[in-house]
């Protein structure tokens, strides 16, 4: 064994290296605060290990980036842990780097002859921050898409080269396929390569000059091994424990939040994202930008940060005198305090901003919904997950209703999205449309003339309210029972998912109800139900409330089969091309409660 090691040592000199590494002298002995450098290296080690594993799971294209990340997060055992580690290490790395920088400056380790090594530390910090920015975008979810778009636009204001640089980075005038290939290549290739080169030079220079150590210490010198090594190991374990805690904390406390890193809804360039914010360690810059009026943002985004960086770069020269050294410490502390202050202003501003909170909530709901849809039997189509939300009645129905219907109609009294509508209600409330309860309300003398039915339309004085108020109002119990069967029969036409059970249960009543519709109650005097009648004057109730009926109705409510000349303000959404047939279908499905629901666990 010894012979083999001697052989190897003669050819590599590894014994000397081990000696240098493990038995380097630390003036004044080991200390906890010397562990910051190791903490940085440990974080970068985690990023390399998890980053390579993520790389082997990731597919950078607009149809597959989100999809591959979602697959990893939700369908690969331990995928959430891998993503979580990479994500949260990126979150704590800025803290660890800031501590390291403070330790270097306070300990005077930036002064001669270590100036060059100090500059490499600063370059390393910038590379890490740029990696964070590029990595933010790779999942291609709404958050990363919009937040990095803002960063790219800020890059675009750099004089002369800004726009060109932006075009090269994003691979064209707008975000697309090449944005992902380039960001991925930068994040996983160029920057890690640069980082390794910087670290090698940093380590070489560090070995050359050795530990800085304390200037005046009562403690004796000590070698790195084993005292400092043990302290460093404990710090690494503390980091790993912190990361694990951050990853599983929502499960530990039962709070709502993702296991590991969050994944939003897939990026959609036509869908605004009002919850866009940079990562917390960029929040100070984000907040800073708010204070600069038009055309001055270059001051906030580039010139002032540039001046601060330049001063930090010049610290080795400023620090030659004792007062200069004190200035350096004070300046760095001031920078961190200001950044912390700006970030907390941004935080508390958002905490008190109800529209931002609403946007965050909406974004979480969409993220949760798209996960359900991706897990559904249909799954993610080859064209990408973006169509999942666009074709989902549960997601699009309320939005379409709020925009196109809620100026007259209501849904449970709101606009579909839960907002109060200022305009007075002109037409019926369509929550539960097609159900027995909705029909029973229409046939209730107390309700028919309320604004939730015909009350605010010109049909208020029509035959239907008159029928309800003069006939139904005086029904005997026996007729009331008949009316219930008619209601069941007409409501069964809608074939609502929510009523499937009761429709099947009351099949006999429904058959009877159809006969009563024609004869006893007299609905057929004006309406048709499954029996064509050329003299019908009121909407055809064959298939009333079904998808097909609703789509035709939305296409043109003034069609002779529906309101004909009696139509009030309801636009012909299809025929007038106000809405596409797809949108009309989505509204119809949503009103009927027909959307994918995951099976209850």
């Amino acid at each position, binding site marked *: 064994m010894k012979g083999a090691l001697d052989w190897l040592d003669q050819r590599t000199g590894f014994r000397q290296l081990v000696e240098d590494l493990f038995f380097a002298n630390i003036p004044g002995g080991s200390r906890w605060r010397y562990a910051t450098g190791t903490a940085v290296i440990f974080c970068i080690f985690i990023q390399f290990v998890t980053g390579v594993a993520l790389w082997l799971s990731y597919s950078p294209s607009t149809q597959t980036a989100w999809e591959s990340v979602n697959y990893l997060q939700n369908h690969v055992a331990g995928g959430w842990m891998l993503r979580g580690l990479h994500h949260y290490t990126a979150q704590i790395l800025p803290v660890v780097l800031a501590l390291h920088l403070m330790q270097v400056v306070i300990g005077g380790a930036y002064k001669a002859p270590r100036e060059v090594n100090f500059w490499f530390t600063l370059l390393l910090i910038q590379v890490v921050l740029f990696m964070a920015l590029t990595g933010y975008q790779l999942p291609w979810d709404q958050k990363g898409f919009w937040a990095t778009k803002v960063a790219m636009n800020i890059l675009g*204001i750099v004089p002369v080269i800004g726009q060109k640089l932006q075009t090269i980075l994003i*691979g064209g005038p707008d975000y697309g396929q090449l944005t992902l290939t380039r960001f991925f290549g930068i994040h996983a290739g160029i920057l890690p390569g640069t980082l390794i080169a910087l670290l090698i030079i940093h380590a070489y220079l560090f070995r050359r000059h050795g530990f800085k150590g304390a200037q005046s210490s009562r403690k004796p010198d000590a070698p790195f091994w084993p005292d400092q090594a043990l302290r460093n190991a404990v710090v690494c374990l503390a980091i790993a424990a912190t990361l694990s805690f951050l990853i599983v904390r929502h499960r530990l406390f039962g709070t709502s939040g993702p296991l590991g890193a969050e994944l939003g809804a897939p990026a959609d*360039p*036509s869908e605004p994202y009002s919850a866009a914010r940079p990562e917390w360690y960029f929040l100070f810059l984000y907040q800073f930008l708010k204070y600069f009026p038009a055309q001055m943002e270059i001051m906030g985004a580039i010139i002032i940060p540039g001046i601060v960086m330049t001063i930090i770069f010049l610290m080795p020269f400023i620090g030659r005198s004792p007062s200069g050294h004190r200035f350096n410490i004070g300046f760095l502390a001031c920078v961190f305090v200001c950044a912390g202050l700006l970030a907390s202003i941004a935080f508390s501003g958002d905490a008190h901003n109800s529209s931002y909170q609403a946007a965050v909530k909406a974004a979480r709901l969409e993220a949760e919904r798209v996960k359900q849809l991706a897990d559904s039997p249909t799954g993610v189509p080859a064209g990408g997950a973006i169509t999942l939300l666009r074709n989902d009645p549960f997601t699009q129905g309320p939005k379409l209703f709020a925009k196109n219907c809620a100026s007259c109609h209501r849904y449970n009294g709101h606009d579909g999205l839960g907002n109060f509508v200022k305009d007075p209600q002109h037409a019926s409330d369509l929550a539960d449309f097609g159900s027995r309860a909705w029909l029973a309300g229409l046939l209730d003398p107390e309700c028919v003339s309320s604004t939730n039915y015909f009350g605010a339309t010109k049909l208020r004085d029509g035959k239907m309210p008159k029928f309800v108020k003069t006939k139904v109002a005086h029904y005997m119990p026996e007729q009331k029972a008949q009316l219930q069967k008619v209601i069941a029969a007409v409501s069964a036409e809608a074939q609502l998912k929510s009523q499937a059970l009761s429709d099947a249960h009351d099949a006999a009543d429904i058959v009877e109800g159809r006969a009563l519709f024609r004869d006893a109650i007299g609905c057929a005097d004006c309406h048709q139900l499954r029996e064509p009648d050329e003299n019908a004057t009121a909407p055809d109730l064959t298939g009333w409330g079904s998808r097909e009926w609703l789509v035709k109705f939305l296409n043109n409510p003034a069609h002779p089969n529906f309101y004909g000349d009696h139509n009030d303000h309801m636009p012909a959404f299809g025929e007038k091309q106000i809405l596409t047939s797809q949108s009309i279908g989505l509204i119809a499905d949503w009103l009927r409660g027909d959307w994918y629901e995951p099976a209850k666990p």
Partner: protein
Amino acid sequence: MSMQSQPASAKSGRRSFFKGAFAVVITGIAALVPSLAAFFVLTDPLRRAGESISSVRVTSLEALPNDGVPRKFPVLAPRTDAWNKYADAPIGAVYLRRTGERSVEALNVVCPHAGCFVDFSGERGQFICPCHNSSFKVDGSRAALTSPAARGLDSLEVEVRADGSVWVRFENFEAGRAEKIPVA
């Protein structure tokens, strides 16, 4: 190799200078081969002409009540994204506001400050950017001089055709500038 035994040629003046110079130049040329190839590919987006912009149908007049409130519509248009061609890709969104019987104003929803989508707040009657709080009046002009945006919301050419359809010539403009410079 020990430092004492330098080859004689290294010391002999002009000839070794030229050899050295050639070594540098030749290495430089050799290194240029892969570097130029990489440079040309990476800067390719700069040399590409932007897609020609034509008007696209966004909606019809019926969808725009004459109440002075802007309404947001997605803009779907043909798009070539590197190797993909889309017949109707979402390329952005516009706020449309009816200003008369047959006249409509169109504003790009992108905030000219940093590129977020602005929201129209019915309560304030203004567009508010959720990112850096820029605010704009209903006609798109800046609402406050302290607003971080350097210009008002970008108005777009809009055309109401005989059949009542509303067509918009959709364009994006460089963020952060006082002038409207189309993004090429």
